[in-house]
């Protein structure tokens, strides 16, 4: 039943052999040494400071949605960096390997990457950026913020939440391992039939690609179910549907998309795996296979996935704009409707990724019109944000700058997207870098929204604000880098430069490629600024300590909880009375009122099971990639066995008594009293005058011990 493999295979190690380790590669070998040294150093430091116990108890076995979210975000940021390095390599190769007289090193005729290696770099770049950077970052934020925003104590399934995280981590490890053991796919991040068939890609690269994608799909599906049920079932009393913060709404619509579309990806890749492992003929060039069927199945997932990542970003922007405009969000109901309209239409547009297949005028027109329809709800959102800012008291804090940047990127990406929705134009620019520039503009919306959210919600999770000055430095560097990289890219697209060129034949394009390379250098500076930002903020954490409402003008329920949020979120479940509950309580002078009494609460226990199963999914992916059948079967059996064992053990959780809770709350309140009212916006150390003046009815807050200090600002 199994296919005949080209090359060696043995029962013990599968296809794994010493010659699969690229120790002679001048780029990978030093990197490998650096990674090994770094890992030893990290483990040494953890051992030296005796932090293993802390790490195990507080992070590795945790089921706390906030810590899991933080780990999702860490994975996302690390992979964002890896993906950025891939992007840097692509840009450097193209500016180097330009024109017939360009030099070549490391075995490449032009530039420094051989075509095969270049193919791996751009494939990994795309896959990592979409599924292992954007997705974990957004899932991380949904994880942290949604339960607090709806007043829940945790997610509906805390254990499943941990499982989703560790499966995502397994996928990240699997793709990182592919750097040093074997190679990665060279077929682009979305793959083409029949190049990924065994006949044309006999190596393990495509198998790494398949199992990495399968693991992320599994992890995201589990996370999606969890968030949907959390939002449907776990809302605090009084949190009716039309009082939900917009971020919850967009998370809901995004996760509906995730739940419905990821299975299509799993099938598409499962069938590729069947072709490669069992010798079936779904996408082969002969035996009646259909090449375009793969492209179709992939984009059935692929396009909804785009909205899965953009909708939470829209939600983040919808939280940041009102806070720093000191106004409620304009057009709440239309915002909700627009989110669901986008989610619904996302299921009818996928063919616009392959208009050039030639399905004919009727089909192309249908998908073209459907694609343009997306512009309507998105336009509604853009106007809503603009009207939110209109006549608001805008504070140009760092988070707000990132949100405004996201808005500009959305305009650029959206307009070019409308152009691409027209089949006639699409035929002209298909597979050109114009398309690349378009979807990078769209993905930059997400990156901007994410960095805005990192700054916006950082105090909620860690209890202190990030340094405004360095956050703004990073913003301007990042924006300059984006402009320098992607404006020339749009121009090159119109000039006819196609995507994924390992050798750029036209020397006339050199100036544009050079500008893009400068842009990449500026991006590098913004990465540095981010590191400095973290360093400075952690150094000044006492000075930057934040109160419950870190910005003084926040509106939704999560800002009612302490900063940092205790592991139980709210000691007593809040009763929600209004949309923008915190703003409502503040207007009526009730935002600092605390519950009179505390009762026992029930919390889920920590468990190592999710970590074990996550690790086993990595082993399974690795075993399947290298066709080590005994290892794959063993790890699959172990996963099933662990699930059964867990189902017999169950999770009774534990009780925190009311008295304990009261003690912890008292302490949190003491910290809060020291921190409240310290926020000043408008750059480093400057007082922003009346821009931050708190609330319009300051009189009602006169008697409020926690807010009185703010009146002086």
């Amino acid at each position, binding site marked *: 039943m199994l296919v005949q493999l080209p090359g060696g295979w043995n029962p013990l190690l599968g296809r794994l052999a010493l010659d699969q380790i690229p120790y002679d590669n001048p780029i990978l070998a030093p990197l490998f040494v650096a990674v090994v040294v770094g890992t030893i150093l990290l483990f040494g430091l953890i051992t030296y400071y005796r932090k293993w116990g802390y790490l195990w108890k507080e992070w590795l076995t945790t089921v706390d949605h906030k810590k899991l979210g933080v780990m999702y975000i860490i994975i996302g940021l690390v992979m964002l960096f890896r993906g950025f390095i891939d992007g840097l390599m692509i840009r450097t190769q193209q500016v180097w390997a330009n024109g017939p007289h360009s030099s070549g090193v490391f075995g490449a005729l032009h530039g420094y990457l051989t075509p095969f290696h270049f193919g791996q770099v751009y494939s990994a770049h795309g896959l990592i950026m979409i599924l292992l950077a954007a997705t974990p970052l957004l899932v991380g934020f949904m994880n942290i913020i949604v339960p607090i925003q709806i007043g829940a104590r945790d997610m509906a399934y805390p254990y499943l939440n941990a499982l989703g995280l560790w499966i995502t981590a397994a996928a990240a490890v699997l793709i990182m391992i592919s750097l040093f053991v074997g190679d990665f796919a060279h077929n682009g991040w979305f793959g083409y039939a029949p190049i990924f068939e065994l006949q044309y890609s006999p190596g393990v690269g495509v198998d790494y690609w398949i199992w990495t994608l399968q693991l992320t799909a599994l992890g995201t599906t589990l996370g999606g179910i969890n968030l949907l049920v959390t939002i449907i079932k776990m809302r605090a009393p009084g949190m009716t549907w039309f009082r939900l913060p917009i971020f919850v709404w967009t998370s809901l619509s995004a996760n*509906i998309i995730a739940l*419905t579309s990821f299975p299509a990806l799993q099938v598409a890749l499962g069938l590729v795996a069947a072709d490669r492992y069992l010798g079936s003929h779904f996408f082969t060039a002969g035996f009646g296979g259909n090449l375009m069927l793969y492209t*179709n199945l992939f984009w059935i997932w692929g396009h909804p996935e785009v909205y899965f990542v953009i909708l939470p970003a829209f939600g983040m922007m919808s939280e940041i704009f009102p806070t720093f405009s000191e106004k409620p969000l304009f057009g709440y109901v239309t915002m909700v409707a627009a989110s669901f309209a986008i989610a619904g239409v996302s299921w*009818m547009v996928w*063919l616009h990724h392959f208009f050039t297949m030639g399905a004919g005028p009727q*089909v192309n027109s249908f998908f073209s019109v459907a694609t343009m329809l997306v512009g309507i709800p998105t336009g509604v959102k853009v106007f809503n944000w603009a009207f939110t800012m209109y006549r608001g008291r805008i504070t140009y804090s760092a988070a707000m700058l990132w949100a405004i940047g996201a808005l500009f990127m959305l305009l650029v990406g959206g307009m070019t997207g409308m152009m691409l929705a027209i089949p006639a134009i699409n035929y002209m620019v298909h597979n050109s870098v114009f398309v690349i520039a378009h979807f990078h503009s769209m993905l930059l919306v997400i990156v901007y929204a994410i960095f805005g959210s990192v700054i916006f919600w950082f105090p909620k999770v860690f209890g202190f604000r990030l340094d405004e000055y360095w956050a703004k430095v990073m913003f301007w560097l990042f924006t300059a880098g984006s402009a320098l990289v992607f404006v020339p890219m749009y121009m090159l697209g119109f000039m006819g430069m196609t995507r994924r060129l390992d050798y750029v034949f036209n020397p006339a394009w050199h100036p544009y490629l050079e500008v893009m390379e400068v842009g990449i250098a500026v991006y590098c500076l913004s990465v540095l600024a981010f590191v400095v930002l973290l360093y400075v903020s952690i150094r000044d954490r006492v000075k930057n300590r934040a109160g419950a409402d870190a910005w003084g003008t926040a509106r939704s329920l999560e800002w009612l909880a302490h900063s940092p949020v205790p592991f139980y979120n709210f000691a007593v479940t809040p009763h929600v009375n209004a949309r923008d509950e915190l703003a409502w309580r503040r207007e009526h002078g009730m935002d600092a009122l605390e519950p009179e009494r505390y009762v026992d609460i029930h919390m889920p226990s920590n468990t190592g099971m999710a970590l074990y199963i996550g690790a086993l999914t990595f082993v399974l992916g690795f075993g399947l990639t290298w066709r080590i059948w005994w290892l794959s079967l063993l790890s699959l059996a172990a996963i099933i066995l662990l699930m059964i064992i867990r189902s017999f053990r169950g999770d009774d959780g534990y009780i925190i008594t009311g008295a304990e809770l009261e003690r912890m709350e008292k302490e949190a309140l003491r910290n809060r009293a020291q921190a409240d009212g310290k926020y000043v916006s408008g750059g480093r150390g400057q007082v922003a005058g009346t821009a931050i003046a708190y609330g319009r009815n300051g009189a009602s807050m006169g008697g409020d011990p926690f807010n009185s200090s703010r009146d002086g600002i």
Partner: protein
Amino acid sequence: MSHGHSDPVQHPEVQMSSVRGYLSGFLISVLLMLAATYMSATHAFPPFGLLMVITVCAAIATIAQTYFLLHIDTAEHNIWNTVSLVLFIPLFVLTIGLTWWMFSQLYLHTMPAMTGMH
């Protein structure tokens, strides 16, 4: 709100099971499948008509099973299951329908000689 400490067997989702419902679901679907099998095995109708007839059989059997076995109805404890199913069905239809449509059009435009389905 909470059923956490009460008797799980009294939960409405347990209590909605009924012998009569399961028997009806079983009988309806077995009889319909029997009819569909008989008609197919004996080629009782011309192909297109037969396809229509067995599609109707499948549709009724599915609806019966969804109602009697999955208890998809508008009862309060079930409403979210019903809502999510109703949201999903159009997506099933879109996935299969649009795929089928685009490929039949593709074949029509690229290899007209091979459009004879099956």
